[in-house]
């Protein structure tokens, strides 16, 4: 099909490129028309929600297969197609992007270090966020590695500039470390996937996954492994031939492990999250980190299922360390933003734990499906709650000019509504039943429990450590005697109430009635789980 025609008819392509169009319109606006800039940006980021609602309406939760598929020939010489589609793994993420980005734009009105106080101005700021939105949609809908990789990388760039141009005091170091570190991961992954392409002649996720499931005639390995080994053999390096699958597995794993991140590849994260402007931190934690987890679900689990099974104990242990060490590190932070950053590390550890547990032996198909559904719900829940936490931390910084816990205290007296809504988000993050974090964590733990009882029991410690650092934060910011210098700070404005309230309400709804969201992912998750049973 003609790509141009494809773009016009395909709902996913329209969704993806709509914010880009918005960004272009934005660039045409006069530089100082801040109100218009903001309005256009907000409208452009919110408009895809219309497509998303339509997608949700048409989406059939009964099938685990791809929906809304569209395919066009792109670069025949390289066998690169433009392939998009949605299934249970990605639909919740597309919804999440459509919720978070508009709220971020709405909320980013007056936050330290952001547009109007910055000499670069507001226009590039909002344009970058819109570009990021396109990148994210693209990465969550693309199903051909080549095509997907462009979006994966393209989503790095706007964030680099958000940090570099609008960040806090150490923004330059943070931006470079963020970029280079994650880029190294991308390169590793690219090498791995390129090798697979050379061996199989395909970039297509579905084709590769199918190859990974087809047994090779007359052997006990899969078609994919056979082709990879055959290709490796042509290189004439015996060592490589022998270990090629493991090597490729770890190369590809590396890209995602850095992005999520998995301990010990997380050290770029605290500094980037801390130095980024609030909007940047929100996108990084709520959406970018999800690209990593999504990559595991989309690429690593289907294509490398034997390797995941082989190394599941190792990987689960690393996920465990991610949970525990992230939480412990959060516990002794004085900088509010660094604290929340480490909390993100720890929370994403739950996702990774559920992911890798699927590869462990024992348990039933339902257990694995539950764990995978939990991973996806946790991505969604964490997206909402972490976005909320960073938003409110940004508001605190904007009001008091400090992120240092030692300077704060007793703020609840002056800003009770602020404290109330932030409290709800914080308790959602802590996994309080009735809010979104709880069903997600329960599903991950319950699904993984039969697969690895000891490890899961140790991982439950994370729930305690989370309470430790979050309540410490609550205590240091809101309780105790209040310093007189904070007597005059303002409670939430109408706009801030709306942003915070929307997040709180979403967390509440998902927490009380998780079934509709889980229903979206269940068929695909179950299909994926079958690979490991």
């Amino acid at each position, binding site marked *: 099909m003609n790509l141009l025609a494809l773009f016009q008819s395909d709902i996913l392509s329209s969704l993806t490129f709509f914010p880009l169009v918005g960004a272009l319109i934005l660039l045409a606006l006069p530089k100082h028309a801040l109100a218009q800039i903001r309005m256009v940006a907000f409208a452009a980021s919110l408009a895809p929600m219309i497509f998303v609602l339509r997608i949700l309406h048409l989406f059939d939760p009964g099938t685990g297969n791809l929906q809304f598929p569209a395919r066009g020939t792109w670069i025949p010489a390289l066998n690169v197609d433009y392939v998009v589609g949605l299934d249970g793994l990605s639909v919740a993420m597309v919804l999440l992007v459509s919720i978070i980005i508009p709220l971020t734009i709405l909320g980013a009105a007056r936050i330290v270090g952001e547009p109007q106080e910055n000499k670069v101005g507001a226009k590039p700021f909002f344009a970058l966020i819109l570009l990021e939105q396109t990148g994210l949609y693209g990465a969550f809908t693309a199903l051909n590695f080549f095509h997907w990789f462009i979006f994966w990388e393209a989503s790095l760039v706007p964030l680099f500039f958000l940090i570099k141009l609008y960040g806090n005091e150490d923004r330059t170091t943070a931006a470079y470390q963020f970029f280079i570190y994650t880029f190294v991961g991308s390169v590793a992954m690219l090498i791995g996937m390129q090798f697979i392409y050379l061996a199989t002649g395909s970039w297509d996720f579905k084709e590769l996954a199918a190859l990974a499931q087809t047994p090779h005639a007359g052997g006990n390995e899969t078609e994919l492994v056979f082709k990879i080994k055959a290709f490796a053999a042509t290189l004439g390096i015996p060592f490589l031939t022998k270990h090629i699958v493991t090597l490729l597995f770890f190369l590809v794993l590396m890209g995602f492990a850095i992005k999520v991140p998995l301990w010990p590849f997380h050290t770029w994260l605290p500094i980037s999250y801390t130095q980024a402007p609030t909007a940047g931190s929100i996108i990084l934690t709520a959406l970018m980190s999800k690209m990593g987890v999504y990559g595991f679900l989309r690429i690593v689990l289907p294509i490398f299922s034997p390797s995941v099974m082989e190394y599941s104990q190792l990987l689960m242990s690393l996920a465990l360390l991610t949970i525990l060490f992230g939480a412990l590190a959060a516990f002794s932070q004085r900088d509010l933003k660094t604290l929340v950053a480490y909390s993100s590390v720890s929370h994403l550890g739950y996702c990774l734990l559920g992911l890798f547990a699927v590869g462990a032996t024992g348990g039933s198909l339902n257990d694995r499906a539950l764990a995978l559904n939990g991973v996806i719900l946790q991505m969604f829940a964490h997206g909402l709650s972490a976005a909320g936490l960073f938003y409110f931390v940004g508001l605190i910084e904007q009001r008091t000019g400090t992120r240092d816990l030692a300077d704060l205290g007793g703020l609840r007296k002056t800003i009770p509504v602020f404290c109330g809504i932030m409290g709800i988000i914080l308790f959602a993050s802590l996994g309080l039943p009735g809010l979104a974090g709880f069903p997600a964590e329960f599903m991950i733990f319950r699904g993984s429990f039969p697969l690895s009882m000891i490890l899961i029991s140790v991982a439950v410690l994370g729930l*305690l450590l989370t309470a430790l650092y979050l309540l410490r934060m609550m205590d240091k910011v809101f309780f105790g005697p209040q310093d007189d210098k904070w007597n005059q700070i303002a409670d939430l404005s109408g706009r801030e109430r709306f942003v915070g309230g929307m997040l709180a309400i979403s967390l509440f709804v998902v927490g009380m009635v998780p079934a509709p969201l889980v229903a979206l992912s269940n068929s695909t998750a179950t299909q994926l789980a079958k690979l490991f049973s």
Partner: protein
Amino acid sequence: MPWIVENLWLIAFLPFLAAGISALMPRAQKKASSGIVIFAMALSLLLSLKAGGYLLKAGSSHETLHLVRNFDWLPYGDTVIRLGFLLDPLSAMMLFVVSFVSLLVFIFSLGYMDHDENFTRFFTFLSLFAGSMLALVIANSLLLLFMAWELVGLSSYLLIGFWYQKPSAAAAMKKAFITTRIGDLGFFIGLLWFHYASGTSLFYDQGQGALDPTKLSILGGSAALWISLLVFCGAVGKSGQFPLHVWLPDAMEGPTPVSALIHAATMVAAGVFLVGRMYPVFEINPTALEVVAFVGAFTALFAATIAVAQWDIKRILAYSTVSQLGYMMMGLGVGGYVSGLFHLFTHAFFKALLFLGSGSIIHACHHEQDIRKMGGLKDRMSRTFVCYMIGMFALSGVPLFAGFFSKDEILLDALHFHPANLPHFASRIPIVFGLIGAFLTAFYMMRQVKYVFFGSPRDHGAQHAHESGSPMTLPLIFLALMAVATGFLGWPGHSWFHHFMEPAAEAHPTNLYLMLGSIAIVLIALGVSAFVYSGEALRAGAVDPLEARFASLFRVLNNKYYIDEFYEKTFVLFTRTFSRIIVRFDRYILNGFFVWGSALIVYGLSLVNQLIDEAAINRGFDKGCRSVRTGSQWNRWIQNGLSQHYLKITSLAIVILFLLALFIGRT
């Protein structure tokens, strides 16, 4: 399905709804907010009575019947997690206790919290608590129970820290949440295991629930033991059992109505309720109940010794609560399912009475809580005094008051505790600890009463004290009536309560010697205490006679065996240190050594490369070309600047690719 079972959820929902409405109300709407909350609570009480009435009417036919209303909550794979609500004698009994005490405490709070600027918020939190607690008792699923369990923990956290500006309150709220969460970790693992092992999330489900005999029989002995012990961890945390009791006395930082409702009558009893609810699982492996018995017996005695040497009127009651919860656990553990729950039942009323009484006293004495600064309140607050004395007699176990009946039932069951797998002396521990504890209980209560009500005022607060208003004294009178009446429901040998809870099983026959012995112990303790704390001992500035006689022992007890200090020096310090080590490890080893180290190596290589380039070729053009391709691009990345180029290249590439796509796609 009977109407009340169909609509059982309303009992919990109404207070939640009231909490939600009240939360959205501005501070000034005191009347409307408290009115809605109290109204919702009154409705819940009526529905609870209706539920209880239905079970009574159903008569003995309900003995094996658990009335349930289940629904699908979370479908996954090809199955579904179901939740539900349950009406059986246990939940009916708890419903009555919780909604009755809640309503009285709410009314009491109208007076007690009248002058607080966050009055509205207080009622919001109270209602949130009531809703969660009611949901907890009617949950027909361990998962739903756990969810409500965490929510009562949240309400408790919010209410302990209601006066959050006091550093002690801020510390206490955190401590309460964290300490109970330690226990909840065990509970959570137990929940996962129980759900996994039984394959259903429901307790009762037309014979297919996890607690129905068919499913119980497939649960192996060792799995049952593990599940029981793990779930018991949660109960230990919530019900303040040793070694997780440390949060409960500190929780007295909350307003006194909170202490009465949450930290005496209802929430802290949730642990006992949980063991009661899971009793069929605990019974599978005898070791599980033995652990419960010993933890309970130890806590009963241990907390009673601490209560003897405290000065704060509420802390004495708090340690007394810990000790009484120990009795309940002990009762359940020695096989007295009914006696443990009966003590929970009676204790809820008389301990709420004592706490509200202490609230009335504290209110009158201008928020003074030190019993050394009280005295002579007998005549100044006669109504409170009479009610308080009734509560005190009930707690001490004076015959014909409620605590006498329920405590004796526990002791009786402890007497018959002879598990086959324990040596004889070990099986005697509960009864011996129970009797010593009974002595101490009567002793410290008489000590407290003497300090508070007798002698002459030792401070101007007590000097000017006068009786509280009727919103506060009326609930006291109601509770005082209950503190007498409830005991008769458990008349030895003809226990109505026993028949209601467990119609099938027979209670142990009354043992007259045990009863007379325990009466003697209580009377002697009261007498000794009354004798010791009289005359000189009640003068202002006098040293506690116990302190004068046994100075070092008194100091240890007064400092609660230094357990807080021990935890501070071990677990807390360890966590803190470990956390700092992790942060440093991150910063210096992982990020410093490995990440920046490898970056520097690459940088160094690129420098070498550059030098070679310069020396060997020394031509700008070549250098420029190579720098894109070879290692020196690292150099340029680390140095400021190239990323913009990179962006340009990337965007250029994207544009080219798109153009390509459009044209190639056309073919």
